[in-house]
């Protein structure tokens, strides 16, 4: 198994609060991985630390995005932040938002041109949002907003994608559509990692799980890591949801 991203003894603090403590883990290449844990477990922080958005107190992040590139940059990672992180009343259109995914390739004085616009439209088509390209972003439903965010990450043409709760506040149909797109990306050899909350879908969606509660609890293939004991250690309590999801252990494994 090849590793796309690895962290070694990563520690991140916000003021006096510890967000991540001594986390050493690996994200396998060409798989869909989930980061799972209770609220405040540092799941989003782990993504941001990988992207270099938050200062780390100690430890390191190693990116092995593509063997051909001598230097790996965090900017080669497609990032989908939480939907609630932006002001959806901002006066831009869907196409404008997706075009922002190309800004990393543009110089500071450049504006996106015809080539960038074509690429953005292509990515909008991928998430079936091309008819909405001239809509103001505030006019979209939650699921549509998420699909537009996804298109913005795709236009970065990355090989690794980090998604922060892409299914939060999204309807079932969109969730299904997003997971299918991500599975296609995986078949093409891309690496996908997301913060995920719904424990009932873990086994059908993910090849690999990372269980986190400030410290790393467990990390590995879903089949042998997503267990009752590990979940209990992660969440500290035994909830119905945990019991329900552990029953699914008996179900046949996901897409292998």
């Amino acid at each position, binding site marked *: 198994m090849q590793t796309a991203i690895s962290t070694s003894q990563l520690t991140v603090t916000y003021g006096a609060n510890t967000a991540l403590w001594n986390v050493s883990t690996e994200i396998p290449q060409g798989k869909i991985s989930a980061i799972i844990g209770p609220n405040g477990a540092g799941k989003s922080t782990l993504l*941001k630390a990988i*992207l*270099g*958005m938050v200062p780390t107190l100690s430890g390191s992040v190693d990116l092995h995005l593509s063997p051909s590139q001598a230097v790996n*940059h*965090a*900017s080669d*990672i497609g*990032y989908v*932040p939480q939907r609630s*992180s*932006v*002001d959806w009343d*901002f*006066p*831009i*259109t869907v196409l*404008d*938002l997706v075009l*922002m*995914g190309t*800004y*990393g390739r*543009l110089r*500071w*004085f*450049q*504006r*996106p041109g015809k080539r960038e616009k074509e690429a953005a439209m292509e990515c909008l088509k991928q998430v079936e949002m091309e008819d909405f390209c001239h809509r*103001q972003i*505030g006019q979209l439903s939650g699921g549509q907003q998420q699909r537009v965010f996804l298109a*913005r990450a795709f236009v*970065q043409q990355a090989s690794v994608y980090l998604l922060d709760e892409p299914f939060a506040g999204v309807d079932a149909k969109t969730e299904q559509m997003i997971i299918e797109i991500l599975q296609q990306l995986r078949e093409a050899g891309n690496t996908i990692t997301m913060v995920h909350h719904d424990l009932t879908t873990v086994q059908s969606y993910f090849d690999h799980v990372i269980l986190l509660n400030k410290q790393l609890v467990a990390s590995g293939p879903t089949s042998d890591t997503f267990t009752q004991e590990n979940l209990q250690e992660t969440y500290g309590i035994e909830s119905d949801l945990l019991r329900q999801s552990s029953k699914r252990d008996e179900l046949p494994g996901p897409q292998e």
Partner: protein
Amino acid sequence: MIELLSDYTVRLVVIGSALIGATSGGLGCYAYLRRQSLVGDVISHSSLLGIVAFFWLSHFLTGEGNKSLWVLIPGAITAGLAAMLLTRSVTNRTKLKEDAGLGVMLAIFFGTGLMLLRWIQRSSPPISGQAGLDDYLFGMAAAMTSSDLWMICSLALLSAITVLFCWSRLKILTFDEEYAAGLGLPTARWEVLLLALLVIGIVIGLQIVGVVLMVAMLIAPASAARQWTHSLGAMFCIAAGLGATCAASGAFLSSVQKGLPTGPVIVMFLTAVVIASVLLSPSRGILFGRQRLVS
């Protein structure tokens, strides 16, 4: 009225005010979208201290107080930035929340500025050139000289060029700074540029609007423009246009009607535009919004 417009001083004042209105109105879009109205208010109130202090400094160095914008605007920038940086370091090091820090800093800088102003006005022997310094409280467009107009022109041109060339970067930084950081853009540097643009949008208008009401010149055009469009570019142009129109009309009215402070007159025009926009906008207006709900 045409006769009046051909008057050199009035023409100078109207052109200068229109440039100020356009610059503040346009740059105000960033402040509005980044929710920095309060920050803008702190910078403008705090700048009084810098204006008065630099005036006194010019008196101290040359023996005569200088009220040229080339002296006072650097003072305003210094004090405005000092207030911002102090707020940041206080809120980082204490448990004070940001809005409390901003409120405290506004009170300290503005209060000290007022005290220094009063001291300069009452000092004996009198400091030459101090008459009219208190116009910086509520603005006096008629005080504008042609050298001031050059200062205003350079600031307006500088900000227009910056915005045009850095359009995309400023847009992504305003919309989604976190994502911009993820793309590997040096967000800290762009933050500084946005702060600089905010400061320019404020200090450029202090002479005609005054420190007390300047935040209206910054935020009102953007608030009105936002009601009419869903595009950032159009919002920018509408805000600049509205700002220019209101500032020029207010400055004209106050310079032909002696004793009318310019700032409040401009703010009255701006208020009317904001109310009209909030009520009448076809997509976001209160009146038509209700109608849509009924149907």
